[in-house]
């Protein structure tokens, strides 16, 4: 019985993701005084890519890469309850707790890296080295923040963490443990592939990094994931730090606002090099995380 509901969640989130990313892009365009893309542009691009007539494959892992990637996104979404207090939208969270969600993020990353690497394109490999390098530092403050939050609520269950934040805005982790949230949000910036932390893709420099060789339906799958995955990730943040969501409207609003954080930062700052971003995380975000862990 969970499966139809899970599919519904998936459907809602994909559509929401497609529209929201377009909207955010539009907002970014408005900052540059442009009109920006039509709000349905993501759908069109996706249909077009699924509809391309030719495609090539460099090998088995290349073929499977997007499957890994999208499985990672779908899995992440479905392992975390979307709507607090709703049995219908608790998804498959019975399978594992917060730790499962945290580590499942890497499932798609790893599969994608392997697929991109099999194309044999040096830029793919370069993009991956950059991505992985940056990730090691970006994940650290987040891990510390999660640890601090888990310690604070003495549980690793996402549902229980959300439950503990109910009863008013001031019960959110944002206000009960601001240091942890600050550290986690810095890490969030690093994981969203937006400036100043987008040296992984670095269009113009290493075409677009890992997916340089991906196209047509492969690319379409990755686009699907691109709509889905940020939302799924933000759901984790929302549940951990911002009191979760009790209904779909609240869900939409919170996800949008959290997403906007990285969009805001992204339109303002230029790009970091890898070692610069690593240093930035270690110098600014990690101490906050350590403080959060120590002070809990």
């Amino acid at each position, binding site marked *: 019985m969970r499966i139809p509901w899970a599919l519904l969640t998936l459907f809602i989130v994909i559509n929401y993701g497609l529209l929201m990313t377009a909207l955010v892009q539009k907002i970014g365009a408005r900052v540059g005084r442009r009109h920006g893309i039509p709000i349905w542009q993501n759908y069109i691009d996706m249909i077009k890519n699924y509809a391309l007539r030719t495609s090539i494959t460099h090998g088995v892992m290349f073929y499977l890469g997007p499957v890994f990637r999208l499985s990672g996104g779908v899995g992440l979404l479905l392992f975390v309850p979307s709507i607090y207090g709703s049995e219908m939208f608790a998804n498959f969270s019975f399978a594992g707790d917060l730790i499962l969600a945290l580590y499942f993020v890497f499932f798609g990353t790893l599969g994608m890296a392997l697929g991109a690497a099999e194309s044999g394109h040096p830029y793919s490999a370069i993009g991956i080295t950059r991505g992985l390098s940056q990730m090691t530092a970006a994940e650290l403050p987040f891990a510390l923040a999660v640890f601090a939050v888990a310690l604070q609520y003495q549980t690793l269950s996402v549902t229980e963490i959300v439950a503990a934040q109910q009863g008013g805005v001031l019960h959110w982790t944002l206000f009960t443990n601001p240091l942890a949230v600050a550290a986690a949000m810095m890490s969030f910036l690093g994981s969203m592939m937006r400036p100043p932390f987008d040296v992984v893709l670095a269009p113009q420099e290493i075409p*677009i990094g890992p997916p340089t060789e991906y196209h047509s339906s492969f690319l379409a799958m990755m686009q699907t994931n691109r709509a889905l995955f940020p939302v799924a990730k933000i759901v984790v943040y929302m549940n951990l730090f911002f009191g979760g969501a009790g209904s779909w409207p609240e869900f939409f609003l919170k996800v949008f606002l959290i997403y906007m954080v990285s969009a805001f930062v992204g339109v303002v700052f230029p790009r970091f090099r890898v070692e610069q971003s690593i240093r930035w995380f270690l110098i600014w975000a990690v101490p906050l995380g350590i403080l959060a862990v120590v002070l809990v």
Partner: protein
Amino acid sequence: MKEELLKRIVKTPDGQEIEIDPLRDYYCEAGPTVQPPAYTAIIEKLFNWARSESLWILGFGTGCGAIEMRPLMTPRFDAYRYGIQWRPTPRQSNLFVISGYLSVKTLKRVIRSYEQMQGPKYVVGLGSCTINGGMYWDSYNTIKRLDDYLPVDVYIAGCMPRPEALLAGFEELKKIIRAGKAEGANQYAANFDWYKANQKSVIHDWDMPDYNW
């Protein structure tokens, strides 16, 4: 033929000697084929609509005309609102704008990039150089007719055409696509030998496979 593409003998770790033929061993030898449209017309119509509303341009400025494409991204012209955007890799693009004169040397790269794009794919010739050589009509090193070498869907005349002209050209292209007439990729595959012969008649050092996947 470049030295690195010549056949050679190498020694394997267990001491055997094997022959390496780079063109055969490094590259896919298959040629292009004509790709049929979707099974039903209505779906094909939908697809064509999607293709027309999602033109991804390969960011490859071949000549001086490239300078006229930059303004398209700016607030003044903002091509994004027409579903047009630039992609850094041919794999993900479906529109190749040949922006101005094409020297023989650049033509080689253009052909390779064009073949690496996935169909259906479109070519727009920008400026009079692509039409008849333009001001380079007597140059020893510049081609004069682009459609001898690649299937061109739309020419935009001018030297240089303004961004507005470009936008008009793209709109024209959209119409052609929606009408299902932009079958350049299939045309290229169908007349592959003719195109190849034309290309090889000006590119004397053909140092790549016949079709670059």
